[in-house]
């Protein structure tokens, strides 16, 4: 009997999650229909965001999101790759590795608003001094902060995949006289390659959706950013900035941006999961 109740409650919980997700998708789709039917495909390709004439489009924000996230990913690779090699290869099981990995994991627990504040008060004056632009806000500042935020996601998963590389393979290479660097280059990285790739895809997905820190740092201007020093807006930050006062077509457009963001992140996550599944088999 107990077993049955337990099973039933598990079943209900699982169903609830599915229903919840489905209703979120339904809500997003139904509320964004207005925007899509008004602007059609132009919603994604045009760059106008004009509240006075009620004309909205998503391109500046899609570009802002992609630009900051791709840059963040590039910035994070050197750091997260070294951390994962340190933890998964050189010092695996060593005390130094335990300390480093818990510090990096701690980074994942820092609330995003704290990263935002740090970027605002500490990193931004540095940007001004470096002459990136006059006030420091913009794509570069947000990408750097984003990069630091996603390091833990990329590095801990990568380390896990590196640690999964069979010892036989590595020992074989050593016995043939390979140096440690050669083992990493020729054996560990190729063997764990697709897993590491998946880890970075997941980190990228995380960067796409990040809202608070980016909203504080990107400058919130509705234009397509053309350079590192340009200000812009991301899909998440435009929603955070404007939904409080939005109504009608504007609200529908924000919902549509939310839907697009959801679709992009969902497909990124799906790709990552798929690759990881292939690796683990």
């Amino acid at each position, binding site marked *: 009997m107990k077993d049955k109740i337990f099973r039933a409650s598990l079943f209900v919980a699982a169903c609830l999650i599915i229903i919840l997700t489905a209703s979120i998708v339904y809500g997003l789709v139904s*509320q964004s229909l207005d925007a899509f039917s008004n602007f059609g495909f132009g919603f994604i390709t045009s760059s106008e*965001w*004009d*509240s*006075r004439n009620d004309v909205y489009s998503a391109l500046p924000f899609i570009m802002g999101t992609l630009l900051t996230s791709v840059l963040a990913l590039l910035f994070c690779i050197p750091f997260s790759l070294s951390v994962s090699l340190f933890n998964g290869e050189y010092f695996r099981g060593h005390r130094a590795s335990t300390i480093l990995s818990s510090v990096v994991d701690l980074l994942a627990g820092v609330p995003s608003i704290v990263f935002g504040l740090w970027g*605002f*008060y500490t990193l*931004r004056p540095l940007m*001004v001094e470096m002459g990136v632009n*006059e*006030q*420091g*806000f913009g794509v570069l500042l947000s990408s750097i902060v984003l990069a630091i935020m996603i390091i833990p996601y990329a590095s801990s998963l990568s380390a896990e995949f590196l640690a999964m590389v069979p010892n036989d393979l590595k020992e074989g290479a050593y016995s043939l006289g390979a140096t440690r660097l050669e083992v990493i280059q020729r054996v560990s990285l190729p063997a764990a390659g697709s897993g590491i790739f998946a880890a970075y895809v997941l980190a990228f997905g995380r960067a796409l959706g990040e809202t608070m820190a980016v*909203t504080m740092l990107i*400058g*919130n*201007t*509705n234009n397509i950013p053309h350079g590192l020093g340009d*200000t812009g807006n991301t899909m998440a930050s435009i929603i*955070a*900035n*404007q*939904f*409080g*006062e*939005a*109504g009608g077509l504007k*609200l529908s457009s924000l919902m549509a941006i939310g839907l697009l963001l959801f679709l992009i992140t969902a497909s990124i996550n799906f790709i990552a999961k798929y690759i990881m599944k292939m690796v683990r088999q």
Partner: protein
Amino acid sequence: MKKISLILCMAVALASCGSPKKDGSMNISGAGATFPAPFYNVVCKEFSTATGNSVTYGGIGSGGGIRSLADKTVDFGATDVFLSDSEMTDMGAAVIHIPTSLGAVVLSYNLDIADLKLTAGIVSAIYRGKITKWNDERIKALNPDATLPDQAITPVYRSDGSGTTAVFSEYMSKVDTDWFNEIGDGKSLAFPVGIAAKGNPGVAGMINETKGAIGYIGSEYALAMDLSSARMQNRSGSFVEANIISITASAANIDIPADTRVVISDSPNADAYPITTFTWIIAYKEQHYGNRTLSEARALTNLFNYIIGNVGQEIATKTNYAPLPMDVRDKTVAIIHSMTFDGKALEEE
């Protein structure tokens, strides 16, 4: 849409819609403009202490306040821009405007110069990207004694829809044709240059942290953060600092209609600061809607009378808003008096 604002308002004003507590005291909740929020926060707290009712105010923006009232998730809304006739119709039932004080929109800047003088034309050129350096000839000509640095100007504006933007841009459009043609007026505008921040506190914080920045904010926020604000040239040509005297002066010599829905910026008065506005509380005239009780409605009118009464107006002055002129106060008393419950006058005699 309703669901979202419901969640928002529940987050902002945790105790929603005046449900009576066990001891007979009421919960009153309001939401709206951030511009008068420092005043409302104090006055609501004082009213709560004085009467035992609990009043909460959430500064979520004028538009949010209007929507929350329309969704009936709050007892009153607050806005710096009075509702247009069509907006009034959209509210479903008659809405009254209760002016609570006068405020100014100031142009605050981050520069080591006190008493900078500016004209609407220069401000317009800055926001349109035509003036980009502080040592521009046009600014120098107005401030011959100041040593203006070779520093880039960073204009800051609101990233969210805002009553402050509406008040500021309404004035700018009125006095500067280039502004009118290129930027226009409204709650949410497209500026060609500059950076944006959310809410009055956001813009104030960004100015405070950015050398060479200039932005428009409610005067209280400039005072609270100790930001310098420009002396603006008014219609009669004098450069006036925004303070309680110059803000009050802007409402003199103006015919105030019975419903107090009037724009007072660009006053002809020589002592007046040019960018000023009444800030209003809005509520439904007929208070018996939903499951509201008479005592809840009475608590609300008591709050309104308290805000425009001597104590409330003194708090307005202390929080750097200008108190209502006497003639406006008389009109406001009449407006509150016109509120009904089941069609009958609400206030206790």
